[in-house]
């Protein structure tokens, strides 16, 4: 489909300024670091001369534009420095931990969508009913929930009181071994390799953190679905569809919901922004070994290279997600797809 290809290309071009901006800001944040990186790397015992030597070695004595070019060159090679805590290249650390974060975020989002879409639709089709009131309470109360607090509440109820959930200690309990790495997603890898016990263990660990994230994303998605569905249901073409005798399901899903999804997809951009931030907090609560907890550990130890790597990764991921949202929008809405 050439139309789609050109849409994707156009959107990719459109994302370039965002990526450039992200890289520049990350560079500026790097240079704004407190203290002298050279002195930091040299260690407390170093004298002025060795600090100076390290400064030269790191290229910190060169003018900023030159430093920026060097930074770009490093980035192009996937070079983001070395973590002081793990002793590993930051890029390797982040690659190893990224699947954990992505798996968690996607599961949280899937949970939120699975609840918010039906709930929003039900609320919009029966204004004033108990479902509607419930949707309203959820959308107002939901945005007020501090995500780290909901996580702790869930742990207290489902782990401590009821004993249904495993201890909030990462992706697998101590006795299970990680599945063979294929995608890095434990749920997927364990299924591919047929390690069903591992799948169950990984799923059990994932439920509470994913639920926490899901609850967090539920409010904006429900609110938007309800509002946009209400708008669409009142529109002329729904009346046409009903006058055509189309079944209730066809009218609600094929005609109403597909149109109502357009604003919801737009909201997804903002939801992802919050979700990626909330992810950091949830990872801390559940000791989830993703890039969020990696960044927190590094922050606490004043190990800055991982923090920069984390921010850059998150920002690039967010730009990528927005790109996908744009393309998804184009897939649903022909008016965008066929624009001149």
């Amino acid at each position: 489909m050439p139309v789609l290809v050109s849409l994707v290309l156009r959107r990719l071009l459109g994302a370039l300024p965002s990526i450039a901006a992200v890289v520049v800001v990350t560079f500026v944040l790097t240079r704004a670091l407190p203290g002298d990186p050279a002195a930091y790397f040299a260690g407390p015992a170093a004298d002025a001369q060795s600090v100076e030597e390290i400064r030269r070695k790191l290229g910190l004595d060169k003018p900023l534009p030159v430093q920026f070019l060097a930074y770009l060159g490093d980035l192009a090679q996937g070079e983001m420095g070395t973590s002081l805590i793990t002793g590993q290249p930051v890029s390797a650390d982040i690659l190893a931990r990224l699947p954990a974060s992505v798996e968690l975020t996607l599961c949280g989002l899937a949970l939120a969508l699975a609840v918010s879409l039906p709930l929003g639709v039900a609320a919009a089709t029966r204004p004033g009913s108990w479902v509607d009131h419930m949707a309203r309470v959820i959308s107002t109360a939901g945005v007020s929930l501090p995500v780290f607090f909901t996580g702790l509440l869930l742990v207290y109820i489902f782990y401590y009181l009821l004993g249904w959930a495993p201890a909030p200690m990462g992706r697998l309990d101590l006795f299970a071994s990680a599945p063979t790495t294929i995608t890095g997603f434990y749920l997927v890898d364990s299924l591919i390799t047929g390690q069903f016990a591992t799948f169950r263990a990984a799923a059990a660990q994932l439920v509470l953190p994913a639920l926490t994230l899901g609850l967090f994303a539920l409010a904006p998605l429900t609110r938007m679905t309800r509002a946009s569905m209400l708008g669409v249901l009142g529109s002329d073409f729904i009346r046409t569809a009903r006058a055509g005798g189309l079944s209730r399901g066809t009218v609600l899903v094929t005609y109403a919901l597909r149109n109502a999804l357009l604003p919801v997809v737009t909201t997804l951009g903002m939801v992802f922004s919050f979700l990626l931030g909330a992810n950091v907090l949830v990872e801390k609560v559940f000791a989830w070994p993703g890039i969020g907890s990696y960044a927190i550990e590094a922050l606490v130890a004043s190990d800055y290279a991982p923090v920069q790597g984390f921010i850059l990764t998150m920002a690039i991921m967010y730009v990528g997600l927005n790109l996908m949202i744009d393309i998804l929008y184009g897939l649903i809405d022909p008016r965008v797809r066929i624009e001149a």
Partner: protein
Amino acid sequence: MMLLEIDNLSLNFRTRSGVVKALEDVSLSVGRGETLGVVGESGSGKSVLSFAVMGISDAAATVSQGAIRFEGLDLLKAGPSDLDELRGAEMAMIFQNPRTALNPIRPVGRQIADVLLRHAGVTRAQAQDKAVEMLARVRIPDPERRAKAYPFEMSGGMCQRVMIALALACSPKLLIADEPTTGLDVTTQAAIMDLVGELARESRMATLLITHDLGLAAERCDRIAVMHAGHVVEVAPTAELFARPRHPYTARLISTTPRPGASLAALEPIPGSLPDLRGELAPCRYSARCHLYQAECDAGPLPRQDDNGRMVACRRPA
């Protein structure tokens, strides 16, 4: 038996500011192959009536009395699945603003095919073929390609042709056309109405033409019903209605319509405006605007029927 019979229909809307008595004691009938015009100012209840017939009224609407019979079946008592079988198949509707009346993100051919799939017992491929055929019947050039187009890629007149193709896809016995030409330019208006008339004649389809345009009704309808504030005040064969309007409102309405040859000075506005349909209403809802009003009118409009199928609801008809 007439194709469509509406008997003493009363319909109310519940709103925050009170109950709106949108229709009261409305009785009308449409025969097979006949074109009945329903005319009146905006707010007179024409569209509410047509939505009630199609069973697509707003959720806040309740029918307090009366019956709507289609081929003898009382639509108000029929189950929802029976109604879904009728809608789009036996009776169909076209709307004003054709551009917003079509799903903006679905190809128009698919929208026609959806209706066919629902009612005609055909496969997806057959439905798609039939949709193209219908587009050709409403004289859309290059129907194969147009079937894949979206409403935003078409003009208003083209969209209305698609609406007609969609409505007539299952060869309904009754077509309700609610202001079908409002918002279209004059030449397109005529073409659209010619098309509807022609297709109706071909298949002996009855048409209920809802319009505020008396001129249009005069040209296209066999009979005309005049509505005012939720009442049917007069029903008559078209020629007779214009030659000898009996209800004072009808007379006023005709005199507000410009006609060729008449001077503009002869145009008279109708005094006052439609009464607020909430709360207590005078039994004759026109009485406050009527120049013939007398105390006896407060007993309510008196429906009089004559042998030629004329009806007038007035104490003091002309």
